């Protein structure tokens, strides 16, 4: 299994994530897809050379769009399974190894993963943690898979996937992007093609911080201005579903209209979480979601088993985010450090 790490001009973040793999997953096999400027590439070369983990450093023109870069990277090796993890995301490989094994057992599944915790450091001393709960999407037909997924979407790309599937996903993403529909579009096109296997454990810790990722308010009507992209996503999901066993065109159209309509309603100010009764029934009120919420609470509760299991990992990540936010390490030119 290869882990592909896209990076561009964040040398301190790349250094941090390489150190993380060396410390917690020293047998991981990494490929860095580097789209940095020449000075930063030089610094990254040093980091890779000194890494205590197997890393291949692939350098690309800084002007090459990220999805083109990743497509090229994926065509350079033959491994069946891939994890895509950017330089500020920290996978829990114990969980993702279970995901890989489930994909071997389940050829009809295209990707698998565990729950995702987002740690967003928003200002000095302030942060929030957010939970995305993964769920089994294992219906035999694409309309039902998209219906189940769309009832409570989650990011499907933080996990393990078949390499051929990731290539298909990137082929779509190099022609399509709309920020407010990104995760939904990726998820719908993923489950249109096949099943998703959920591992009910912590799978990925994704981070953001106020230095590298300053808040960018989206223009309120962006989803209307990008309506052609919304429809392009609809058509892409439909086309992928049409290639899958059990396809029924009318059902797929109904589901896509419903799911995209709900997303549009959320963007217009009426998210499904606010719908009366949302917390009292599936998909929210289910053992999977309840157990994930408990895991999430325990992750930040002293003395819990989950906390003990991940305390070292979290302390390491905290330490590196602190270094990155307290300095200009990600932005200073090479040679100035």
């Amino acid at each position: 299994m290869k882990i592909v790490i896209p990076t561009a001009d964040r040398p301190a973040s790349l250094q941090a994530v390489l150190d993380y793999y060396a410390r917690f997953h020293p047998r991981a096999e990494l490929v860095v897809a580097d789209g940095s400027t020449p000075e930063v590439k030089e610094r990254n070369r040093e980091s890779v050379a000194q890494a205590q983990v197997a890393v291949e450093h692939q350098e690309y023109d800084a002007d090459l769009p990220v999805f083109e870069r990743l497509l090229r990277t994926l065509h350079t090796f033959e491994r069946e399974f891939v994890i895509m993890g950017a330089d500020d995301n920290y996978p829990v490989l114990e969980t993702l190894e279970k995901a890989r094994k489930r994909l071997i057992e389940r050829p009809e599944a295209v990707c698998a993963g565990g729950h995702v915790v987002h740690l967003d450091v928003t200002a000095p001393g302030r942060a929030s943690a957010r939970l995305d709960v993964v769920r089994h999407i294992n219906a035999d037909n694409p309309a039902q898979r998209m219906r189940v997924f769309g009832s409570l979407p989650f990011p499907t790309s933080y996990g393990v996937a078949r390499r051929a599937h990731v290539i298909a996903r990137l082929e779509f993403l190099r022609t399509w992007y709309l920020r407010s529909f990104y995760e939904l579009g990726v998820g719908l096109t993923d489950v249109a093609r096949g099943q998703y296997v959920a591992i009910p454990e912590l799978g990925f810790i994704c981070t953001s911080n106020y230095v590298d990722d300053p808040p960018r308010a989206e223009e309120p009507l962006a989803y209307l201005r990008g309506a052609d992209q919304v429809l392009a996503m609809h058509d892409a999901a439909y086309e992928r579903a049409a290639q899958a066993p059990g396809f029924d065109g009318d059902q797929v159209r109904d589901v896509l209209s419903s799911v995209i309509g709900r997303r549009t309603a959320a963007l217009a100010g009426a998210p499904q979480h606010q719908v009366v009764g949302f917390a009292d029934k599936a998909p929210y009120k289910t053992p999977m979601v309840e157990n994930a919420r408990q895991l999430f609470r325990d992750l930040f509760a002293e003395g819990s088993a989950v906390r003990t299991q991940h305390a070292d990992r979290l302390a390491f990540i905290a330490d590196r985010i602190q270094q990155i936010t307290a300095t200009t390490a990600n932005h200073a030119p090479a040679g100035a450090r």
Partner: protein
Amino acid sequence: MTEPTDTPVPPAPPVDLMEQLGLRLRVSFPEFLALDDGPQAERKKRADQE
């Protein structure tokens, strides 16, 4: 009869539905990641004492 009071009632803090649903936690940084109960903190304590 009860006299009306002029004391203004403070506005209720905004409700974060995601927090209520258990899908978001407000936390301090970096303390939330480095609580004093992990093995790393234990090692640091031991190192500090040596």
